[in-house]
């Protein structure tokens, strides 16, 4: 069978792009306060970097795929900052939602949501707010913003558009080789 190459061709593009638009890369890399991995969050204008970082953790906890690096989740959640900049109600939806989650985490675990070490414990906190507008909006958005990234598709063995390759007639539409003889 023709298998799909599932290696990432995406690498750290998102981080570097984020860093370049904020401050010179060298400055970021040598700064004690901001690790290069966090530069994308410092980019945010309407939402605080801490909120963005927690939102990333929330996104990973809602749809955890261990084969996907953070970059895909960052691409998925970053547009919330732009939407928050345009619409104060979106800004408070996200900020207040994250604040409530952090408060619940502190009440239970004495640390903010993103610092709760086990996913299973964070999922319990998410479960408590599952019915909230914040959770539903973030989850509903992720279904498209995460899974509709073309860079994500090969990681799931999905090849996307095929017509320009002549379809699958000569590319394995019927190449299954492990079935018991009918």
């Amino acid at each position, binding site marked *: *069978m*023709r*298998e*799909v190459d599932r290696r990432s061709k995406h690498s750290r593009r998102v981080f570097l792009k984020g860093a370049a638009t904020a401050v010179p890369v060298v400055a970021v890399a040598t700064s004690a306060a901001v690790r290069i991995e966090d530069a994308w969050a410092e980019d945010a204008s309407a939402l605080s970097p801490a909120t963005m970082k927690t939102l990333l953790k929330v996104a990973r*906890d*809602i*749809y*955890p*795929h261990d*084969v996907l690096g953070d970059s895909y989740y960052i691409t998925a959640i970053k547009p919330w900052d732009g939407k928050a900049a345009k619409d104060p109600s979106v800004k408070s939806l996200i900020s207040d939602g994250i604040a409530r989650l952090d408060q619940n985490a502190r009440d239970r675990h004495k640390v903010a949501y993103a610092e709760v070490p086990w996913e299973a414990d964070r*999922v319990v906190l998410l479960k408590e707010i599952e019915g909230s507008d914040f959770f539903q909006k973030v*989850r509903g958005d992720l*279904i*498209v913003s*995460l*899974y*509709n990234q073309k860079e*994500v*598709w090969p990681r*799931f*063995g*999905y*090849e*996307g*558009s*095929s*017509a*320009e390759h*002549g*379809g*699958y*007639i000569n*590319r*394995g*539409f*019927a*190449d*299954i080789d*492990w*079935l*018991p003889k*009918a």
Partner: protein
Amino acid sequence: MAKFDLNDSSVVVIVGSGAGGGTLGNELAQKGVKVVILEAGPRIENHDFVNDEWESFSQLAWTDARTTSGTWRVAKDFSGLPAWIVKAVGGSTTHWAGASLRFDEHEFKVKTTYGNIPGANLLDWPVTLAEMEPWYAKAEDKMGVTRTNGIPGLPGNNNFKVLEAGAKKLGYKTVHTGNMAINSQPRDGRGACQQIGFCFQGCKSGAKWSTLYTEIPKGEATGNLEVRPSSMAIKIEHDAGGKVTGVVYADASGAMQRQKARIVAVAGNSIESPRLLLNSASTMFPDGLANSSGQVGRNYMRHMTGSVYAVFEKSVHMYRGTTMAGIIRDEAANNPKRGFVGGYEMETLSIGLPFMAAFLNPGAWGRPFTSALDGYPRMAGMWLVGEDMPQETNRITLDPVVKDKFGQPVASVHFDDHPNDIAMRTHAYKQGAAVYDAVGATVTYPTPPYPSTHNLGTNRMSEKPRDGVVNKFGQSHDVKNLFVSDGSQFTSGAACNPTLTIVALAIRQADYIAGAMQKREI
């Protein structure tokens, strides 16, 4: 290409250009009848279709406002999207799968066969299979249906091979790559299927029959057919004698136009067709046009549906190749011993990763959900489609609040599953999982119904005017020169996919209309 005057009252105006309207338009044009088709959506040719689920959805789907109610899960998960159908020239024949099956004899006689089912508004069709057979034959020839007219079946893809192996292990007998209106070899000026996948996103190669690039250009070539895209029908008008006189529609610029007509045929799919009749209410017809029976909008059917996806140890890549070229027909017969009347088909189905995420279990999250998606390349899938019970309370009404951009009330879609539908779905999920378990599935996922693709029954045929909206030719009982030409004519839904029957009825209706025009009956 023909261009008819708005005041030309000799034309037949057809609302909609899909399986019903597009076919009727061409058939009439071939007979020398002048036709104007009003199509609400734009004209998008097949080379402009895109192999991308969400992008294609934006390009083709009917996303104008609709409202929903009832206990069906679609009302909760997709409250504004009761149906996944198309707003473009070619209608839903652009995104249909191509499965082209004839009704079984008993499926035209459901009242006689099933008897009194509490809550079901069953009625026999005023036509029989014997009467329909020659029209089915014409439809199969027109559409180039595989395994008819000497056309070979399509080759089976990986998803089919899994289905077939499981079905055979389970002892099912009638298993093949389907009766598909998709060319397995070049025919009618169109090439053979290239196994592209993305059948639901519009067939870029044109191997799949769609009125967009078959019926419509053929009709236009006669000089008797004019198709007006981006023309949304608003109201059908009538004279003091109760005959329809034309259709008011919003053109591409949003301006209101009035096309006069000798005959009007409504083919806007089973949600918009009753909506148009209801929105055409007048002093003479206060409950809506053609609605003396009160049945306009009622008996909305959407088929008993569901899917089963199964994950295996090794790769399947189900998305490669023709989406629905695979069927098990052993459960299609009526066998009430199973605990329900009617039957269902099991057909291969695949959706891409983006739609799998949206439809596998809407609203779900966390590890159980992502674990299922991680299995995507090792997944096989089938669609379950069976007869659902017509119920008077499942209906299309005019929403009392929400209006479209032209100020017209939008359609509100109410649906509750009948106990028979639920019993059938439970059985179908079990059998679907058994098919895959038989060849080593490690997990199976019974997946809930998607927004409706088969919308049927809301202007149903009946022998007696009090029981339905149209007669056996789709002609309104109340208004002689008003016809219904889409799946909303269906008296019952049958187990199989509806398009072949819609096309067969449209060919037959064209014959009837042309004859009646010649005899000056209408």
